[in-house]
């Protein structure tokens, strides 16, 4: 993710960016009009090129509005994606999924590297209260909200109380998911430093683990409520326990190996990260451990058990400057616009209430923990974003409860779409307001050094 931009860019620069953006859209638009029936074997590569270029340019053009770069990437994907201009079709979006694998590995690694033991220790009390209060508070509140609004939700209005309770419980569990990628994206763009940035990062990375446990618990209790004849089973916890412990031990090993490599060799990190993102992720899935947690642990080990954390973070950020653009632009292209159109009203209401309860419980936990005023006021802002994790859990629910799964997942998609667009804006706004982002405002750094004098 790119650094925070210089605000004063000339009109000529903006004009060039606009021209470039129009050209990239124009080239692809002309091609799709000219050759609608031709299947190109390089369709995916073209889409990657388009999304990277359009995402980068749109994020730059939105900078004067003080919108985060993420919004630009998402918007590029939405506009170019299958539901608006159809420059990138469904099949291509699906083929881009390996990029998500790579991006999530990078995000988890970077997230782990950012977690220093000393910093965590300083906010341990705050994180403990926030995790407990946010998790249970938001879960119970949003489950209650779902129950109350059930009559306005098409697939829930005819459910009897028992299954409705189960579905509400699942909705509550999904509401406590956050977006590590959005958090890392904004922090990387703004290079924010301060109590709010530290708290948000620590909380979201920790919540990643908490949510998995919460959802497994919710599914365990929801199953007998939704499915007639089913009973509470703790088998899910056996699997979960193995997965969490396996991820931590694999992550520790990987982290130590990475630290040794960084110390002894330290070069070609882009290729090493590619191998980790694709190869190691595939291996981890094969042995059924969670790649996200594994990479997060690996990053944490590199940061705290060696002095190679900065080197790793730099490499991840360098590679992320391209991969993250593609990741979020693809997320934008995946966004189901027609579905959002159908369910926007109820989804928007649910999102608003989730944000409201997040704010209330954030203030409450901050007061108890004695957080600094900045966290007390803005601590909730980084917790609004939702992305891949919520969508992934939506798929888990769909698989576990075939009866209500599909409409439930559609509502999840609509709600995540809204949170995905609003959350990063709120978080960046908070970091700007608290001046945590401005403290690290880099000097305008040209893409390339000035040309050498002519010989």
């Amino acid at each position: 993710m790119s650094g925070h931009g210089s605000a004063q860019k000339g009109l000529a620069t903006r004009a060039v960016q606009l021209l470039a953006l129009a050209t990239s859209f124009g080239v692809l638009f002309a091609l799709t009009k000219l050759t609608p029936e031709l299947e190109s074997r390089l369709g995916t590569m073209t889409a990657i090129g388009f999304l990277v270029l359009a995402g980068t340019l749109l994020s730059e053009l939105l900078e004067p509005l003080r919108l985060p770069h993420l919004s630009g990437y998402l918007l590029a994907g939405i506009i170019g994606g299958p539901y608006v201009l159809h420059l990138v079709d469904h099949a291509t979006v699906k083929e881009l999924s390996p990029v998500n694998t790579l991006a999530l590995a990078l995000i988890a690694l970077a997230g782990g590297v950012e977690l220093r033991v000393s910093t965590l220790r300083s906010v341990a009390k705050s994180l403990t209260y926030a995790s407990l209060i946010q998790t249970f508070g938001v879960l119970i509140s949003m489950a209650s909200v779902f129950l109350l609004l059930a009559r306005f939700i098409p697939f829930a209005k005819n459910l009897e109380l028992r299954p409705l309770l189960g579905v509400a419980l699942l909705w509550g569990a999904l509401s406590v998911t956050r977006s590590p990628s959005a958090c890392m994206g904004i922090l990387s763009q703004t290079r924010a430093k301060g109590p709010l940035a530290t708290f948000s990062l620590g909380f979201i990375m920790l919540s990643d683990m908490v949510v998995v446990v919460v959802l497994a618990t919710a599914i365990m209790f929801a199953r007998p409520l939704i499915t007639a004849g089913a009973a509470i089973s703790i088998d899910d916890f056996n699997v979960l326990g193995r997965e969490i412990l396996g991820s931590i031990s694999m992550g520790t090993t990987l982290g130590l190996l990475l630290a040794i490599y960084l110390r002894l060799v330290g070069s070609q990190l882009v290729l090493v990260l590619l191998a980790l993102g694709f190869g190691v992720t595939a291996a981890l899935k094969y042995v059924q451990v969670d790649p996200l947690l594994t990479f997060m642990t690996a990053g944490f080990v590199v940061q705290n058990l060696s002095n190679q954390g900065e080197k790793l973070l730099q490499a991840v950020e360098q590679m992320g400057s391209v991969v993250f653009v593609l990741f979020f632009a693809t997320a934008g292209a995946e966004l189901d616009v027609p579905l959002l159109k159908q369910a926007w009203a109820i989804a928007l209401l649910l999102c608003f209430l989730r944000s409201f309860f997040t704010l209330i419980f954030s203030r409450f936990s901050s007061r108890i923990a004695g957080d600094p005023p900045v966290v007390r006021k803005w601590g909730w802002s980084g917790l609004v974003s939702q992305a891949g994790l919520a969508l992934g859990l939506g798929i888990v629910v769909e698989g576990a409860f075939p009866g209500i799964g599909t409409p439930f997942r559609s509502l999840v998609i609509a709600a995540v779409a809204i949170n995905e667009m609003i959350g990063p804006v709120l978080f960046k706004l908070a970091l700007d307001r608290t001046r945590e982002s401005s403290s690290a405002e880099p000097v305008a750094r040209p893409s390339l050094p000035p040309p050498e004098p002519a010989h």
Partner: protein
Amino acid sequence: MSDGIWLLLGLLLLAYLGSNLVGGRAIRGFGLPSGSEYLVLGFALGPHVLDVLGRSLAHTFEPVVLVGTGWLSLVVAVGYVRVADRWINPGRAAVGVLLGLLTCAAVTAAVYYLEPSFGGFQGFRRIAVALGMGACASATTRHSVRWVVERHGASGPLADFAADAARASSMVPPLALTLLFALAPGGALPTIPILGRIGITLGLGAGLGLIAALLLGRDFRRDESWGVLLGTGLLTVGAADRAGLSLLGAMFAMGLVLAASRHRLEIKAMLTPTEKPVLLPVTLLAGAYVNLKLPTVVLTLVGLAVLVKLAVRVILGMALGAGPARGTGADFGLSMLASGGFSIAAALAFSTRVPGVASDAVLLFAVVSTVLGEWLSPAALRRSLGRAGELHAVAPEDMGRPSDAPESLVSRESHG
């Protein structure tokens, strides 16, 4: 884990090796200049020998290979007009382009007239195979020249001539393929005349190159420069392929525009280190794509085309004996026989428009030419330089200097 993941990891390992070859620890002259060893490795892993890299598995990576060929074209073009602290010498460059064009024309003509007896290709395929082989025959790899020059510490007019001529000749394959793709029937632009298609190919690359140059010249941040270069590059490759135009030609045009921009040295410094990491996996996969189960007449045609290339190079080399290559006899001609990754890339790019036996024949020609060039060319160049009195003893510490590390490109690049 799927075979695809294993192959990807293998290719990443190769790219890793390639990166180390341009890194600070690389020994000058390490490895073969043409990359033949990776071709042979790919062939050994491919369906004909070990079958580790089966045909369908290798073809899974076809899009990556094609993008790789386009990227190589971009890298070659970005370094085309300027050799670090000096412009390429126009006279020597003109001779280099002429050598490439004459070789291309001779091989094309010979194959075209031999085809009725040996290949059995008809209509457009007849022209395509002839021009495809001509395109692959035309370029002399600059790595071969650099390998000899740096390994033996050569300097002087002949070494400079060889370096500039080899670099200049790399313009011919993209141009030939641009023409070939424009000649191809069908595609996305059937109503546009041939000249128009050529113009669109070059215009597409040049236009997007201009956009990239303008963006990079503005106060874009360094970490976004890769986004711009990758974005415009992939868009160019994809658009050219979808429109049925030559991606090699479009990317070459894009590279030339970037090479003419005021940040050319910095762009070159960014792109050049990516050449080997891209080249090695592409070469390996090309080796795996080689199909020897071709009809005997086609194999004979390939063999004859290689002989024609050899003969043309020797004749042209002897003709140059009256000028810059005085006193080198046939050796200088043989030294310009060397081809490498770029010729292989041309053969792979050819397959996007003319698949099947025709593309197998062209790829086989490129591979055989490359291996033959590897045997004959470096030794011939060393003899030529020796006769011209341009070989010097090289200090061991200079042998260890990286040959194309980024900083050396920005500061000074001697040859290649």
